[in-house]
Every structure is written in C-alpha cells, then in structure tokens.
C-alpha cells in the first residue's frame, strides 16, 4: 500500500496465498501425471478428462484442502473455450486457478464437478446456458437464466444478432 499511516494500529497482514501454477502442477502431477497440459504463473491448464479426479484430489488431500469452489465460469477465445475454476482453501487461506480447454465450437463437453462441490450445480448450469458447454455427469443440466428452446448461447462471441422475432417464435413454440 502506498504510504504508511503512522497513526493507525498495525496488524499482521494476513493474505490469501495465491498458489503458483508450478506448485499446483507439481502437486497434481504426483497423482495425475498426464493431467496438466500447460502451466502459467498462477494457473494450470488441465486435460478435460482428468478434471473430476484432480478436483476431488485437490479437495481431499490434507495439504491442499481446496474445500471451496469460489467460481466456475467460461471464456470464449473463439478458437477454443476455456472453463475456469477458482478454488479456495478456507483452512489454509489459499487460492488456486484451474483451467480446462475445449477446442472448437461444437460438441463441447467438460465433465461435471458437481460431485465434488455442490456449488458447481448452478454455476455449470449457467455456463451451459450461456456458452453451450455440456457437462456430462451433471444431475440436472437445464438452462437456468433463459428458457428452454432459446436460440443460441448469448455469451458466445458469435452470438451477435439479437433477433426478437426468432426469440419470440421460440417462446411461442414452447408455450
């Protein structure tokens, strides 16, 4: 923080430790040698097929204990989609970022981590709704924000034309 205020009491500055990508990769590679495909400074990119196993391991391993899924979302990079998992360990006060990439724009699927964290239920439904990424293994994968039959997935970069007539027709068909 810029400048110091001498009048203020000074406390030990606790901060959430951001687990570096290399440390995370090392921890994962012990049990899942082929899971990590790329390592960044604060994140690792995982193979889609390994995500459930890795997440379960990260949650249950006592020295990692990422017991809290802070966020799950996706980003459209046009060539590929990236599903981003933000993990927190409340006991150790540490955070970690996992990523999974889906190449292409059709038939995207990432195994669901609902079995590991309950929080993934709604978050994966949201990603499914707005990005069209399938999550096999999800107990109740339906659209959550938009109605069933809504044409397209709005948060994709190619969702440009917002044609009211198409949507109205889809809504009517649903009725």
């Amino acid at each position, binding site marked *: 923080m810029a400048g110091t205020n001498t009048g203020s009491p000074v406390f030990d500055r606790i901060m959430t430790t951001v687990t570096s990508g290399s440390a995370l990769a090392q921890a994962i590679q012990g049990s899942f040698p082929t899971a990590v495909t790329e390592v960044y400074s604060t994140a690792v990119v995982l193979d889609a097929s390994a995500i459930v196993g890795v997440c379960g391991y990260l949650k249950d391993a006592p020295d990692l204990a990422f017991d809290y899924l802070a966020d799950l979302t996706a*980003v459209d990079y046009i060539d590929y989609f990236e599903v981003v998992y933000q993990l927190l360990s409340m006991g150790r006060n540490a955070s970690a970022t996992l990523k999974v990439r889906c190449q292409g724009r059709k038939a995207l699927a990432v195994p669901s981590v609902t079995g590991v964290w309950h929080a993934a239920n709604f*978050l994966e439904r949201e990603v499914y709704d707005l990005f069209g990424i399938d999550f096999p293994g999800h107990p109740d994968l339906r659209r*959550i*924000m938009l109605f069933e039959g809504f044409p397209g997935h709005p948060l994709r970069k190619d*969702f440009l034309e917002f044609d009211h007539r198409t949507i109205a027709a889809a809504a009517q068909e649903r009725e």
Partner: protein
Amino acid sequence: MVTANPFLVNMGPQHPSTHGVLRLRLVLDGEKVLNVEPVLGYLHSSKEKLQEEHTYLQTVPITDRMDYLAAMSNNLGVALAIEKLAGIEAPERAQYLRVIMAELQRVASHCFAQAVFLQDLGAWGGPLMYFLREREQVLDIFEMVCGARLTYNYIRPGGVSQDVPPEFLPAVHGFLATFPKKLDEYEGLLTKNEILRARTVGVGVISRELALSAGFSGPMLRGSGVDWDLRKQDPYCVYDRFAFDVPLGHVGDCYDRFMVRFYEIRESLRILHQALEQLPPGEWKTPVPIVIRPPAGEAFQLIESPRGMLGYYLVSDGGAAPWRFHVRAPSFLNLGALNEMLVGSTVADVVAIVGSIDIVMGEVDR
C-alpha cells in the same frame, strides 16, 4: 398420519415474499415441502454480455444495477478488479473513502435485510419501518457524497469519483452517534421476542459442510460457523488497519444468520469509527485515462459484499472493452442449496428461510 396427494404450488415470481422475481416450484403435501425447484432468470438482462461492449469506466455504472441494495460494494469490486488488471494503484485517501463507503453500505444493506426478514415473518408493522429509517440516513449521506441514493457510480478504477464534501464528516459522525442506541433498542425489541425465536431457532439449518460445499458466503457461511471474512483473510483496500471481529453463528439456523447480521452492523460501526479517525488528507484519485486499456491478461478479485463474496473475473485482450466480464454473484450461489434447506419444512418456513438468505434478484439473474 393422513397424507393427501402432493400438489404443486408456484411461489412467485409475483409473491409478496420472494424478494423480487424468484420463483419456487414447491411440491407440497399439505403444509410440508416435498420438493422445491428454484426457477431463475426473470430478471436476466445479460449484463455480462453488455459489459463486453463498454469501456472499463462505463462498466462501473452498470454494476450498480446488479446488487441494487449494495451498489457501493459492487463498484468497489469492479474498481479493484480493473485496478488489478491494469496495474493502477489508488491513493491512500481513496482507499479509506472506499472502506467508509463500503461499510456504510453494509450497514444500510443489513438494515434492509433485517427489515424484510421481519416482514416475511409477519412483523410488518413497526420494526420494518424503524430499520428503513436508519437505512434512509445512510442513503442521505450517499446522496450528499455522490448525488444518488441507490445507484452511486462512485468508486472508480483509480480511486473515487469525487472527494467527499465538507459536511460529510459531521453527517457520518452524527449517524454514528445516534445509531448504536437505536440498534440496542431494536435488538431488545426483536431478539428476545419469543415468537421470533420460535420461528427462527432451528429453522433452515445449514451444516458447516453443506455451507462450504455449496459455495455459500457472507452471513450464510458465517452463520454456520465458518470463520471466513475476506476483510480479515484477504484484506483489500486498507482493512488490515482496523480492529474488528468477525461474528460467527453456532448452528447455522435462521436465528444465527439474523444475529450475525446484527453483529456485523456493530462491527461495521467500529470500522467506521476507526476509518474516520485515520482518514488522511490528499488526493482521492489517481489520474487514469477515460479509456483504460489494460494489458492482455486476466484478473479475479473477490471482495466481501454485504451478501457474501462478490467476485469479478475480468479478461482483457488489450482493448478498450473487457473481453470477458464475469460476476461471481453471492446471492446466486447462496440460492444453490435450496433443496437441502427447504425440503421437510413447512410453507411458513420457506418464507423465513428465503428471507434469511437475503437474496437480491438483480444480482442472481444479472
């Protein structure tokens, strides 16, 4: 026991106590809830998509519209996320002003939460209006600072939009002088009330494990006894310079959440006292260009909003507008385990439990 055929009741989207447009499809056996399915999206306005077409500065007023009861916290979160992304640092006075605004906002938001919770329980008379009166005073202060009562657009990347006016400090001090006494009075009015206890104690119990697994945050998480407050655990702004405690619940029932909010109001007042005392002079804003172009990269910033952990995940491609603008809405995740909380309770409990979650549908649907 006599059982009737289960029947389906739509609670909401237009219902007095579903806080906006939450719709619950309840399967009931008489008064007992057999199954519940929340239906969201009635307020969906695709704000995340909208943000992708705005410059970083323009994203701030749109975040006001998400959690409209705690717009200052929304502004703070997005400002911190953009600063993280673009490597901007706000001056110290701005950091203090941000803390003051965020804590005032927490007081206002919790006052409102208590008021509507009581209304859901049926005490629609006095207590509701007393809490709204206190909230009104905070809104007056906000109006004085930034000209608006609900959608502030005050906290910006690089600081705050304007310095506080000279009458701001006396106004906050006046509020801090009168409010605790009234809070004591309301606590006497409410927390000892036998009916309120009967309605809340042991109702909607969330275990520690469920709270963690379901991604609950804020009073929902702390009500279940998990000691996790980002102001302590990962102090953003200058929260590490203040002495305050984190109230924790015991069982995780509605009463715990209700009381945790009460104590959080008190702790916020403690922080406010210290922040006003330490408020340094100086600049309130780092000069930043109107169109910020952060380097390509991503930033995830969590803050402790009144409703829980509010997160912003920004991805920049180096352009003027964010490539991806994701909001981790606390209310959205707090709704995630309704089935576990509601099944087996009665219709009256549904209202109490949903009230104790303190959802804001603007944030859930985004």
